[in-house]
């Protein structure tokens, strides 16, 4: 059975220890977390966890069942194969010496990014998009010297039915 990346959206009680139950479930059972993003929803009693994980169909089925079994988990959605919108934000600190500054700004513009911090020899650029877009800009900026990046991990919602 082939492994595939899945994007899960999990609604949980907004209580201390809940994230630990979920992370503990993954480490205890040897499942993989590729990215994880947690924050409150409109209802402050509920948090949404957006997670990317990887596994064959039998493992993914177990992951969803095991998550559902946790008393603090309200709902598990598997977005993979569904219609959804997904975004991730990345902050990129890139070396920007005089002769490269214009080129870096052009690239940032093409990707609809923003320079959020600027120094004598660097820019910090904010980009939002899906995984492909972020990978693309990272590979374009790499030749200039990327010093650090910080990524949020994916967040996603189902598209409304038309």
């Amino acid at each position: 059975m082939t492994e595939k990346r899945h994007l899960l959206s999990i609604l949980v009680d907004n209580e201390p220890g809940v994230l630990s139950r979920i992370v503990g479930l993954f480490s205890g059972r040897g499942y993989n977390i590729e990215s994880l993003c947690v924050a409150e929803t409109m209802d402050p009693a509920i948090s949404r966890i957006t997670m990317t994980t990887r596994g064959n169909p039998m493992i993914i089925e177990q992951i969803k069942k095991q998550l559902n079994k946790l008393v603090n988990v309200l709902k598990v959605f598997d977005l993979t194969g569904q219609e959804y919108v997904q975004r991730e934000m990345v902050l990129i600190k890139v070396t920007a010496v005089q002769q490269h500054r214009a080129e870096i700004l052009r690239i940032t513009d093409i990707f609809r990014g923003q320079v959020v911090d600027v120094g004598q020899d660097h820019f910090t650029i904010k980009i939002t998009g899906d995984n492909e877009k972020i990978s693309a800009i990272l590979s374009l900026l790499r030749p200039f010297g990327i010093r650090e990046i910080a990524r949020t991990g994916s967040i996603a919602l189902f598209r409304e039915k038309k």
Partner: protein
Amino acid sequence: MSKLTGAQILMEMLKEEGVDTIFGYPGGAVIDVYDELEKTDINHYLVRHEQGAVHAADGYARASGKVGVCLVTSGPGATNTVTGIASAYMDSIPLVVFTGQVPTKLIGNDAFQEVDIVGITRPCTKHNYLVSDVKNLARKVKEAFHIARSGRPGPVLVDLPKDVVNATTNFSPPGEISLRSYNPTYEPNIKQLKKVVSLIRTAKKPVVFSGGGVVLSKAHEELTEFARKGQIPVTSTLMGLGAFPGTDPLWLGMLGMHGTYRANMAVTDCDLLISVGVRFDDRVTGKTDEFASQAKIVQIDIDPTSIQKNVQVSVPVVGDCKISLRQLNELLETEECSDRAEDRQEWLAQIDEWKRTTPLAYKQEDIIKPQYVIDKLYELTKGDAIITTEVGQNQMWAAQYYHFREPGRFITSGGLGVMGFGLPAAIGAQVGAPGNLVVDVAGDGSIQMNIQEMATAVQYNLPVKVVILNNCFLGMVRQWQELFYNKRYASTQFHHTPDFVKLAEAYGAKGLRAKTPDEVEKVLSEGLAHPGAVIMDFVVEQEECVYPMVPAGAPIKNMLLV
């Protein structure tokens, strides 16, 4: 509405949940709870080690069908419960464990006897709580009992900081609760059940494979009716023993690593495996690729995570075992099944053939054979005793040679395999089913892991009987070393073992010993008839092995036989 302290609220909630028995051990963090407990009618059993309290509550729960309850202090009191909790979690036994905790303002400060027991037990409880406000106490306790006993049962831990126990609040009972994120599925999908019936109709070589879930949901009568109606032979896991009568002609014996020849062969050869309340543990399946590889597999279980976890299933049914089997029986009722016995003739004849050629066997010669002790125990108790076990060879021989006819009669640490389980579990079972004969089948190794509980048995006049199959070895590990490590007995031999007869006497119990085969019956008769707690020490063959045996990871048809 009246103002009560946390400790008083806890007592009110215990009464509301029908708790009349607690196993525990006091300490600084729970001294106020004990002070209130003393004023109630609840019977508290003071054990000698907190691990014993949890195993006793486990044995109590299995023998009585109620939720087992423990009360221990913070820090080491709490950590000592972990093995018992993990065992109950693996075996799906409903427990509520109350642990003391340092005052909330000290939590996180490395206070005296502080430990993050909620963090420690997160992966081995069904759920757990740290009660940080006395206002939530009643509701959390109610939820704990609800979660422990419903769905697939399991242990729930409630951590009680000392200041929460002493704080006061207006108390009103929480009434009915419903948890929006916890709703076990009891009713099976009828479409799935109809698929099962049509598979039964066409199967030539079906087998029922029953497990602990059948015992837990008290589905034994429905299971027996189902098997007889369909003329389907039945095998079971260790945890499932007793759900189907061990004396019935359709009974195959236990399945797996130390299963009977006919059970392992029948499952390997069957064309339909109807599994009920099992989770396909590796000790049962051996190599999963070759487990029932000819068969369509049906799996009925209340816990969706048990389904399709280890083996591919053709027809999954999520639901309570009892309700599912009852509905299957109703569906089979409407089926044309008059000639079913005839359909099965060939298959049942094959099974009889396996049974005839390769039965469970041992030869009783000059030295006492451990199997002979269990045989005699079965004979003398007429199969009516509650048997608890330790873990290892003693456990397997008890499972093979004591033919359980009813559920709740075989109490063993199946999933976690805890040495030291049997004696405290026997104490709990004796409390939970007073008037029954309760026997702990032990080895000389495992009995020493919780032997201190003899004092508990004697203090509370609990007439538990301990049968020690004494071979001066950690027998099961020695057996593996004999078979797979060229007889290099690394650290498995006890060069010194206490005199168990004298030890029994020191605890105020009776001690007896049998050294020769002709003494076995006499010692058993005398010990079982004694009105108090007894240790019976049987000096058995040192290097006896449990057979059949499937080497770990091999297909279950590859059995080593005597």
